[in-house]
């Protein structure tokens, strides 16, 4: 594979990663590279473990095999305080926003600054207002998280993620459940933050359209494997049936519409044991009823 040569300028690289949940293999020996200063997207249907991949990169989960290198360091070999030092330079945008519900928007953005720096309150104020201005929510600083719409909450979370000026941001499904306007705002925001702050962005998403509009490079995952990769144009023209089904959103194809099950006719004709015993039970009951009446 030509794109895995080590000369590439990648900030995050995943090598031969394997990870399982119970019996199910979420990732089966996959390798990915995330280039510095670029927006790289990981796409695939729901349930392919895209969020799990972000948690593996963030060091919240441990892989069975393989390793994850961030900025030249193996995330899973770091000591706890080293990992925390690294995480200060990683922002993560959760799908739900994960704002602290007992604090105002302002305090939420100020939270990492107050926890990690000893800056005076006046400096924190300027920084928080700058970050909120960048996401267009300076006027919403006194609202509580439950007063925000989903899109606004995600933008506040984004302001919080960039509060410590990280080197990279991990976006978990940033476009899911957004109305077209806030979706457009988020797409623009991610793009402009990436270029103005010189960030490296990793986006996990299944929104084909929005993601291909801003991504520099795309990986398509399915069944724990990479089924396609390349620039958005290359992906669009991919010969893989799989990738085509995903990009076009066809209901049936290599990914079946039906969840694995036995033959339909068999299933209808042969009732299962519990059903059978329930019928018997109700027979007994009606017999009893007859006897006592």
């Amino acid at each position: 594979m030509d794109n895995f040569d080590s000369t590439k300028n990648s900030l995050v690289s995943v090598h031969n990663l394997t990870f399982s949940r119970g019996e199910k293999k979420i990732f089966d020996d996959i390798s990915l590279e995330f280039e510095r200063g670029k927006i790289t997207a990981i796409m695939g249907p729901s349930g392919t473990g895209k969020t799990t991949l972000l948690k593996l990169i963030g060091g919240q989960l441990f892989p069975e095999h393989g390793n994850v290198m961030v900025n030249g360091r193996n995330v899973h070999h770091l000591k706890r305080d080293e990992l925390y030092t690294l995480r200060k330079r990683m922002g993560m945008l959760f799908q739900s926003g994960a704002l602290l519900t007992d604090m105002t928007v302002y305090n939420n953005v100020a939270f990492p600054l107050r926890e990690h720096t000893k800056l005076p309150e006046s400096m924190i104020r300027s920084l928080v207002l700058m970050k909120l201005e960048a996401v267009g929510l300076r006027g919403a600083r006194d609202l509580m998280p439950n007063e925000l719409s989903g899109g606004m909450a995600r933008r506040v979370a984004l302001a919080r993620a960039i509060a410590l000026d990280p080197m990279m941001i991990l976006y978990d499904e940033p476009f899911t459940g957004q109305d077209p306007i806030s979706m457009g705002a988020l797409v623009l925001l991610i793009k402009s933050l990436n270029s103005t702050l010189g960030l490296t962005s990793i986006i996990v998403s299944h929104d084909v359209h929005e993601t291909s509009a801003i991504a520099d490079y795309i990986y398509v995952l399915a069944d724990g494997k990479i089924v396609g990769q390349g620039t958005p144009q290359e992906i669009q023209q991919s010969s893989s049936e799989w990738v085509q089904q995903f990009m076009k959103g066809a209901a049936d194809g290599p990914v079946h519409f039906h969840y694995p099950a036995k033959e339909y006719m068999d299933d209808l004709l042969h009732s299962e044991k519990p059903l059978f015993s329930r019928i018997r039970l109700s027979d007994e009951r009606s017999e009893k009823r007859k006897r006592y009446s």
Partner: protein
Amino acid sequence: MEFFRYLGASTRAGFTKLGRASYFLIEILSGLGSVIVRPRLLLKQLHSVGVLSFLIIVISGLFVGMVLGLQGFYILSRFGAEETLGVMVAASLVRELGPVVAALLFAGRAGSALTAEIGLMKATEQLSGMEMMAIDPIKRIISPRFLAGFLSMPLLAALFSAVGIIGGQLVGSGLLGVDDGAYWSQMQATLDFKHDIINGVVKSVVFGFVTSWIALFEGYDAIPTAEGVSRATTRTVVNSAFSILGLDFILTALMFGEH
């Protein structure tokens, strides 16, 4: 056969959970140092865990004391020993009812709230969000709440006993005509500081420790869904009640067993 399988599986699950809970406790305790450095976090939790439980403790304490006054008078007057009503009320409150009932109320009022709060924070990814911001949720969220519960419990139990004694006095001397001086002086003469009061305080310290531990662990260990949090909250109240009553028996046997 199925029964033995079930028995084995649930025993094993129980021990695994106990192991997780113990590990969690060690983490909480090692996080206490950072709470002492930041007293403001503790103050906020003392308010929500302790101060907000104030009302329920005072009202329940008053009624329990008044009932003790009524019932005690009924029995004692049959032996012509109404004057010892103060001793009876105070001893039962300080030794038993104060720590136990206050702890049960605390588990219902503050413990369930702690579990629901932590469980929801987990369900809404606030805890893992914090981890990704390089902030240890145990140090920032759990340890201050634990310390607050541990510190409030003895104070609430003492408050419960004090209000209860006043309630007994209101009924005894106000309603039933027990001599006021006798109520207080008999109490003062009979109750021993070390044997009665300190032992009561020790009990409430133990209950505070266990209840806060259970409440926080159940929240932290909850399945992050609506149903999971609701189950965890129920488990907090049930397990706390069991632990409080079971430990009370053990502690009573150890403290007062020889007499």
